[in-house]
């Protein structure tokens, strides 16, 4: 912290305060006695830009004096499986923050990300795609939350070669998983005051599989009469996302479509560098960059240290709320949003040319 003091001081001097809609002291969260005890969170830096952006989060947490301790573990995408001590630690701590894990292409190693989700049964993946004020994009008024089933569907990983030259892959849809993801989606909408839930499917072609998914969604929808429910076919959905994204609110999808829709929505709202997200299950939660576009960032971002930390910072704000430190979460989010609004410190994917460190310093400086 000491060696960062000078740059931070510099930023303090140059800081302006543009009008941002931050409520000043009108919200009070009442903690229980003892809620301030520090919580341990597992931290997996990962590959590619992972270490860079998780380092950013660590710095910001330290600056905020947030009651968080990180337990760091080195995991890399080319390992065969997640080391058991890491899984043990996540089970103990219940919360994890993770950078991306690189999945080698066609290498016969199944993705560690998918493995982790299956092992901890993190069945819901959530990505919040919204327009950040001050960041111009082609589409306005975007505020979409994509809730994606995380364990089954096309990513069941059950493939085999029938005869040489013919390969089959099984897509498995079960009522159990579809029901619980639909329940989660509607519960999320209810708890976060969202008005519409849209189910994305391709049931005109895959009648049984996506038909089952839709059935489950419809059943759960009938239990939440105040939330509007509609269905849309996935190709039409992508077309609408590109032309009229403001019509979508919460979207619940099976695994593969969720991946595509989340990345498309992230792309229209500012890119994968700024969208927070995470995976949550009944007992555990892993927060990571919302939509990572299937990679861990370009090499040159890693080399020049120009990766965008905003996504992981916003995810860690979500994590703070999950851990019931809402005030810290608010401060962090406001600071990040202010930095983006100011527009002086932006990394390359947002059109600027700052490094990660500069953005982090700006965020720290903007913390109230």
């Amino acid at each position, binding site marked *: 912290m000491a060696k960062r003091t000078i740059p931070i001081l510099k930023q303090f001097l140059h800081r302006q305060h543009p009008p941002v809609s931050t409520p000043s002291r009108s919200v009070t969260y009442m903690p229980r006695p003892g809620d301030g005890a520090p919580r341990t969170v597992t931290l997996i830096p990962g590959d590619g830009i992972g270490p860079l952006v998780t380092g950013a989060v660590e710095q910001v947490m330290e600056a905020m004096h947030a009651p968080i301790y990180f337990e760091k573990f080195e995991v890399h995408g080319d390992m065969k499986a997640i080391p058991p001590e890491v899984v043990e630690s996540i089970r103990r701590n219940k919360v994890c923050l993770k950078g991306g894990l690189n*999945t*080698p*292409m*066609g*290498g*016969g190693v*199944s*993705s560690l990300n*998918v493995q982790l989700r299956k092992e901890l049964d993190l069945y819901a993946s959530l990505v919040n795609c919204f327009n950040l004020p001050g960041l111009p994009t082609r*589409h306005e008024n975007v505020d979409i939350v994509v809730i994606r089933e995380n364990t089954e569907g*096309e*990513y069941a*990983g059950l*493939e*085999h*070669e*029938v*005869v*040489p*030259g*013919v*390969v*089959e*892959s*099984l*897509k*498995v*849809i*079960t*009522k159990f998983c579809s029901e619980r993801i639909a329940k989660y989606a509607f519960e999320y909408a209810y708890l976060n005051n969202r008005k519409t839930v849209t189910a994305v499917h*391709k049931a005109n*072609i*895959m*009648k*049984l*599989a996506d*038909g*089952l998914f839709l059935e489950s969604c419809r059943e759960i929808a009938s239990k939440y009469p105040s939330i509007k429910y509609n269905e849309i076919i*996935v*190709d039409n959905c*992508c*077309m*609408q*996302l*590109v*032309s009229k994204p403001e019509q979508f609110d919460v979207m619940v999808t099976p695994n*593969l*479509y969720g991946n*595509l829709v989340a*990345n*498309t929505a*992230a*792309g*229209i709202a500012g*890119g*994968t560098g700024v969208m927070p997200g995470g995976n949550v299950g009944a007992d555990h939660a892993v927060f990571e960059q919302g*939509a990572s*576009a*299937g*990679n861990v960032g370009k090499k040159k971002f890693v080399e020049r240290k120009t990766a965008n930390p905003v996504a992981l910072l916003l995810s860690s704000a979500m994590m703070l709320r999950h851990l019931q430190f809402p005030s810290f979460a608010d401060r962090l989010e406001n600071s990040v949003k202010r930095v983006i609004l100011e527009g002086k410190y932006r990394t390359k994917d947002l059109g600027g040319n700052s490094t990660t460190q500069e953005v982090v310093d700006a965020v720290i400086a903007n913390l109230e």
Partner: protein
Amino acid sequence: MAPFKLFLLSFLFVVSLSGTYKAIADNPPTLRPPPQRIPPRRTPPGSMPTPPSPPQHVTPSPPYSVTPTPSPPQDVMPSPDHPVTPSPPEDVTPSPPHLVIPSPPQDVAPSPPHYVTTSPPHGEVTPLPPQYVTPPPKDVMPAPPNHTTPSPPQDITPSLPSPSKDITRSPPHHSTPSPPKDATSSPPQSITPSPPQFSIFHPNPFPQSSNNNFFLFNLITCFDHLRSFFSGQLTVVMALQIAKRLLRSRATNEIFTATRSPSVGLFTTFDRNYSSTSSNLITATLFPGDGIGPEIAESVKQVFNAAEVPIEWEEHFVGTEVDPRTQSFLTWESLESVRRNKVGLKGPMATPIGKGHRSLNLTLRKELNLYANVRPCYSLPGYKTRYDDVNLVTIRENTEGEYSGLEHQVVRGVVESLKIITRQASLRVAEYAFYYAKTHGRDRVSAVHKANIMQKTDGLFLKCCREVAEKYPEIKYEEVVIDNCCMMLVKNPTLFDVLVMPNLYGDIISDLCAGLIGGLGLTPSLNIGEGGIALAEAVHGSAPDIAGKNLANPTALLLSAVSMLHHLDLNEQADKIQDAILKTIAEGKYRTGDLGGTSTTTEFTKAIIDHL
């Protein structure tokens, strides 16, 4: 007496042995596949998971019996008793459709692939159309090895490259047997060197290693020769077969006169100059469709007349009752007409709801074997969307992948759906993609996949694309993960040029790209089928609410017709019409309702004609 009997028996035995010996001496086993009248390996590749001990599977019987014992996959194999009448494709369907068990065709030379009448009895499920197994008649066979036809499987696939390919070219590998050009007792033929079932079952029955093959092949051919020695009586019947083939192929010759220009292999457009018509007109099938279909089809006809495009339209309409031959509302004659003309234009068709028939699009796709869907997406200058610089082409595999329609309920509440990727289909669409890129002057092809998660399926697709990419070194090839691709498309569509994808990703991405340029009402689309069939279609709906009111926007159908002209190599007229359309829209004076204007269809059409 007993010793004498013993001696006699052993003498006879020795004599018989020497007889067989002689047989072997006379016909030394070479690396040749067994003669055609002997049914090939009784176990088609589909039933052999991995060839554990090939000889057992391969040698159907001990050399002494004439009728080799048939072994398991019953439906597919011709019964050994009647020579070489392979079971007609109908018999294949009992086997699970998705198992690619090729069926030996009914007649070996005969009807061109498209005339194969059988369609699968059940609704949406399709085995690979039998024509993969039928060799096209000789005239239609693709030009001898050149780079546009996929090389025979380099590795172990006994899967179905069209058998003719294996027949016409010499084996590229020592592991595949030489094509039976000199099939043992058949008279020298100029027609088809051999029945196709060979090349189906032969490509490489022993995938282990090529070293094995020599030895094992020697064994097998040895046994086969022994068999042939004992089954000489079959030769006569075989000669009859060949004579039949001769006659039949002569009959079918007419249909295929000179409809293939020899220049570029499979996908070439055909030069009708040497056909009989003196007027140099190309006949094309037109399906006006429902709803707004007839109006926009009319518009296309007018524009084409004004531009003096040498096309004569043959109109077909969707029937009002289910045609049992096609099990849908499309009549057999319509499909025949498309197969004959090789070119078609289809308006929007509304599938009537009900059971007992296949959807119209599905019918077309299966019967005409439309394997690639090409959508050129370019921003229309003058129609402002959020993306102004889109210029890409999506090529989507149209037959397999996630849309095979193979689903079942495992137990209550658990459903499985199969995604199938085959080498052959992937090779086909990759070939077309690169061919398209080359002929339209595109310099990059990107394969879209999710091979980090679906390693084997998309891995196979990628492998095929890479193989084809090597044959086109001047075209840049890259691979993009689907989620990355989605993201990049919405952020910066100029990053892509030609995209080639399996079925599901293709569906989503092509609709996404359509959304980028303004929706389905403006997007052209072209379906490519086996045998060079091209069916251009308008992908939007039939809009029954504005049907007949002269308000429809004909742009999609017009642009599809333009891409059809490009396919027919009438580039000059295609460009003329395209420029006229773009200019009309750019001007903004005449725009139909969906583009934000108030013109009627006829006014819009007139404006385009004026701009020609």
